[in-house]
């Protein structure tokens, strides 16, 4: 462990005319960490990456690399490895020349470069293809060339700008595994930008969720998923039911809330006083049809629609006083008669601690 973080970003701000593309962005990234910037398009995540890479000059704020201020450095002086959306392979150079580019720019001896290129191409399973042009390769192969090229000169940091968006599902899973392996084997720090929440959750040590130029929440994938700090996070990461309710009483670590005809129990938060309005955030997969008893909330509703999703079945349930509630149940339990059909009544239950509570004063 080193004392200073591998990368430390403070108060980074970028405006285009009056619009703040990025506002007061802060993050500390440890060496070897895999951090994902996640957000919808236009959230400023690519601008943050571009400022870290040195292509966009911030209006204010600082970027430190292992304690050294690099805010004013040119991109070539920082020399972070970068993988682009669409790969940005040089179309007029062979695979080998593409991978060798960064090494050549550093004036490494020819023999060293050749050996390094050969070993890198072996690592990404492209041995024998070094004389091909990028356009003669498949999308997945181009992706691997881009990766090999980005790590060839052993950069301090690997920046990845939506590198998987052009790949189909199967290939994406392969490349994701490869990325994790590279991160682990090389001990290289990764900053990954994506708008794909599944990708962010499955790949990262930590995820930083951005919206409208601001960092909304940062944490491990499960912390973000289990304890979203805002409605935006809860809605953006996976699906959520939002249940508007009024706090009736507070009992130790729990609160009792009123929602239409239902009295529900949820975990207490510091600001949820009796009489205040709260929102319960409830994941569809935490709800179990037919469950009730001690430690469980239970409500009843009518199934409005059901959709078969392969591994699971999604149910739209209309619950009086709450509104539409989305429920997902494992498909295998849904044998004939197991899962109710539209129009049929259904009882829903969830453990008291399955929901998280947002108070209305929450930002964003």
């Amino acid at each position, binding site marked *: 462990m080193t004392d200073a973080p591998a990368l430390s970003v403070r108060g980074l701000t970028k405006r285009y005319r009056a619009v703040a593309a990025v506002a007061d962005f802060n993050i500390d990234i440890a060496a070897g960490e895999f951090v994902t910037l996640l957000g919808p398009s236009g959230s400023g995540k690519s601008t943050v990456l571009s400022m870290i890479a040195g292509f966009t000059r911030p209006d204010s704020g600082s970027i430190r690399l292992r304690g050294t201020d690099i805010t004013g450095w040119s991109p*070539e002086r920082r*020399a972070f490895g*970068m993988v*682009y959306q*669409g790969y*940005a392979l040089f*179309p007029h150079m062979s695979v080998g020349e593409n991978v060798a*580019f960064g090494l050549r720019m550093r004036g490494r001896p020819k023999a060293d470069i050749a050996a390094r290129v050969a070993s890198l191409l072996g690592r990404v399973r492209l041995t024998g293809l070094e004389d091909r042009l990028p356009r003669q390769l498949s999308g997945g192969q181009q992706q691997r060339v881009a990766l090999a*090229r980005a790590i060839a000169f052993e950069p301090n940091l690997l920046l990845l700008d939506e590198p998987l968006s052009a790949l189909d599902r199967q290939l994406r899973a392969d490349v994701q595994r490869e990325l994790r392996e590279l991160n682990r084997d090389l001990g290289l720090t990764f900053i990954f930008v994506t708008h794909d929440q599944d990708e962010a959750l499955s790949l990262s040590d930590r995820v930083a969720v951005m919206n409208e130029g601001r960092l909304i929440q940062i944490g491990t994938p499960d912390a973000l998923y289990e304890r979203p700090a805002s409605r935006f996070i809860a809605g953006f990461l996976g699906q959520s039911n939002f249940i508007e309710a009024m706090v009736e009483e507070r009992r130790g670590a729990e609160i009792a809330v009123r929602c239409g005809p239902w009295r529900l129990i949820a975990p207490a938060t510091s600001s949820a006083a009796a009489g205040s309005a709260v929102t319960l955030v409830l994941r569809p997969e935490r709800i179990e049809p037919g469950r009730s008893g001690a430690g469980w909330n239970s409500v009843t509703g009518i199934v409005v629609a059901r959709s078969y999703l392969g591994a699971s079945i999604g149910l739209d349930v209309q619950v009086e006083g709450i509104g539409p509630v989305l429920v997902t149940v494992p498909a295998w339990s849904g044998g004939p008669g197991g899962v109710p059909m539209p129009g049929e009544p259904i009882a829903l239950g969830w453990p008291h601690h399955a929901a998280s509570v947002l108070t209305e004063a929450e930002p964003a």
Partner: protein
Amino acid sequence: MRRLSASTKVAGLALAAPALLMLLAFYLVPVGRVLALSFTDPRPGLDNYALLFTSSAIQAVLLATVRICLITTAIAVPLGYAMAYVIVTGSQRMRTFLLFGVLLPLWVSALARSFVWVTLLQRRGLINQWLQGAGLIDEPLPLIWNQFGVVVGMVHYMIPYAALPLIAVMSGIDLKLVEAARGMGASKGRAFRAVFLPLSMPGIAASALLVLILTFGFYTTPAILGGGRVMMIAQYITTQILVLPRWGVGAMLAVLLVAVTVALLGLLARFFDPAHMRPERP
């Protein structure tokens, strides 16, 4: 694409017929006549073409033409390249403004532009007056009625033509590639040389060919700025046909002009083929 039915084809042909007939009557027939004249006037045979190897006057004209064309191309293409580069890499506003600046001169006649250069370059023109006024020279510089004047006028005329194909090709270059090169440690200059320049080569070739083709048949600018002392092929043809008149020689040179132009156009078409021009994008 949907295949055209026979009746649609006939209808299409009928619609195109007036234009096709006009092209045939007023363009292909006269060109054919000129071709025929070059072999028949004043006597049937290859006499006119033999002049290419025997007449020192014609050889001098051809040499001057080729020399001026090459010099003009060598100057106009780099200038057009710089212009195109700024247009393609600049901001949207800069792009619109400069593109307008490139296109505007195309609407001003070659005649008007040549006379503007006369007022600038002549013995008592603006440039010589300034230089003398500033005490930099005693005698006026010979800026006009010579090859220098012709080249200045032609380069000026050709810059938009040099820039346009370059803009087309450069617009197809993904600027992220240059960014990627810099991210891997290449300085601005090296990233340009290693990535942007090679990818813009088809544009340079197209630009050079286009300028060569256009300068080869140039008439107005050399006629005015050359002051009769610099003779290029188009002007020489005019003299042969209108002044002397030696129709056969004029026709032979016209055929040569057309043949060279067609050959260069063939090369140009190669570079404007989308398959050759577009850098690959994943």
